[in-house]
């Protein structure tokens, strides 16, 4: 071990002197961050520039950039009631389901925290939904909700709650609830894990001091726990919002946007425009509009998070 270490050090010395003479120091330093610059260029910078160019051009999936069309695609997009309602649905879905999952995940994390050792074991169990491929999550819930032979219909009929099967995925509102349920199953565990971590940073002594002062359980929760985790909770909400705006797989598997366009999210709408209708010029304009809406919708949450962080420091 020591011989190896000494060897490594000698090697390091020779390497260093040769590097000094061959490579200019600045270029050498730039090389370090070249990989991440390359990755960001390919996955973010280039797509943004390319999308902007597409959005102002007549473009199909087969033949892009066949002439400049000005703001035509943006005008069409902003006057398209189907796409605007898809954006509305995506925003309403993301804001509401993320809040619900945050509340539920926080309560479960509180429960697991009070279970101590058993809670830690349960954490590794709830990790599994998070790891499940979303397509398979969709398949599992589709089997449960199926009108013919689905578990839910079968159970409801058996106990006489409903006389005949309900087509959950064929009803506009119930189909959204089905997507939200599958989403909740998959992502609430993630929130539980993050809230558990946030709760475990609260020092023990704080609670004991309040206990001595005669504070009851609710007072301790309301005036100690909650303010201490407000900042992490707001950042967890922001993270889940970002994930919710990416909603695609569950829609594809569970409803394929239907019935009609009832569960067509913005992302799914753009996908069909580009991959099925080949109209990438208009899909690019829609993507840019959607991106701006996401920015506007998450801004208040970013502000809230900054407010909590400032208050803490």
């Amino acid at each position, binding site marked *: 071990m020591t011989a190896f270490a000494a060897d490594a050090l000698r090697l390091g*010395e020779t390497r260093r002197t040769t590097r000094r003479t061959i490579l200019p120091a600045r270029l050498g*330093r730039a090389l370090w961050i070249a990989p991440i610059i390359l990755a960001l260029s390919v996955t973010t910078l280039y797509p943004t520039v390319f999308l902007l160019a597409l959005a102002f051009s007549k473009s199909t999936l087969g033949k892009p950039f066949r002439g400049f069309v000005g703001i035509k695609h943006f005008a069409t997009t902003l006057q398209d009631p189907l796409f605007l309602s898809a954006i509305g649905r995506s925003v309403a879905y993301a804001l509401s389901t993320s809040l619900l999952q945050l509340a539920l995940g926080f309560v479960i994390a509180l429960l697991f925290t009070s279970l101590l050792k058993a809670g830690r074991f349960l954490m590794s169990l709830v990790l599994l939904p998070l790891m499940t491929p979303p397509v398979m999550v969709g398949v599992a819930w589709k089997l*449960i909700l199926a009108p013919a032979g689905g578990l839910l219909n079968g*159970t409801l*009929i058996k106990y006489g709650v409903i006389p005949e099967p309900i087509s959950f995925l064929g009803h506009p509102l119930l189909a959204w609830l089905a997507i939200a349920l599958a989403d909740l199953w998959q992502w609430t565990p993630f929130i539980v894990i993050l809230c558990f971590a946030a709760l475990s940073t609260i020092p023990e002594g704080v609670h004991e001091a309040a206990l001595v002062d005669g504070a009851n359980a609710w007072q301790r929760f309301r005036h100690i726990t909650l303010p201490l985790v407000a900042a992490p909770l707001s950042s967890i909400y922001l993270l889940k919002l970002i994930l919710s705006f990416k909603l695609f797989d569950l829609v594809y598997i569970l409803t394929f946007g239907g019935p009609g366009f009832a569960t067509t999210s913005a992302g799914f709408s753009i996908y069909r425009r580009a991959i099925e209708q080949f109209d990438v010029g208009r899909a690019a304009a829609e993507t840019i509009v959607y991106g701006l809406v996401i920015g506007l919708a998450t801004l208040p949450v970013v502000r809230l998070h900054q407010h909590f962080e400032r208050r803490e420091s």
Partner: protein
Amino acid sequence: MRLGTRHLWLAMATAPIVGFFALPILYLVAVSFKTKDDVLSGNFWPTVPTLANWPGAFEAAGIAGFIFNSVAVSVLGGLLTIALALPSSYAVLRLKIGGRWLADLTLSSYMAPPIVALIPLFFLLKAAGLLNTRAGLVLVYGFANVPVAFWLLTPFLRRTPIEIEQAAAMDGAGPLRTLLQIVAPIIAPGIVATLIIVTVLSYNEFLFASAFTFSDATRTLPVGISLFQGDRLVNFGQMAAASLAGIAPVYLIALFMQRYLISGLAHGGVK
């Protein structure tokens, strides 16, 4: 006595939660052993269990090929991500190259929904002749997960004592040698955890895979399953078996990671 009732309450609150999270997977297992008629019964467990769905799923749907593609693409993509993200996060945190703007740019690139990159990457892969190839997906996943890996690796790097690196530098080791031979072994648990997370992200990915591959030779498992269910004569038992076959590798990794992370952290704690 009070403690006893308290525990009873906690257990009563926990049971439905565990039941809810276990339900879909248990139901998949149950359906995978049901015959075609039994699937329509609406019962939870099969009345007469059959094993036919499992070989059926592998024969009829080419599930084995899809699983191979998924594993190959996600593992190679994950290794590429680590190779790109490790030097970069080390450079930003310890060598003070790039600095705050690069960290912020990385985070904001993660915030954009993947649909933004879908069309541009389609044309990039087409131009490079990598459309409908596994190599194309490896590159897409390898690049796309770099921001995630960057953010996962940074806290591990921050926790390593800087004195070790200073000592290495005084002994004449260059930054690359310090990273590979001294820092990397210390944060190995963090690197492995990050590798597992980005690999699972790629393994589960559907949007890019469905748009960039269009033959059975290149399709990944989520895409294969999604086509399975588009079939009009869908056999739910086979579909459940195929889904479980695809979930199994991730669950094995999840259990394995659990142990690895705990032992890795305990090891670091002792030192």
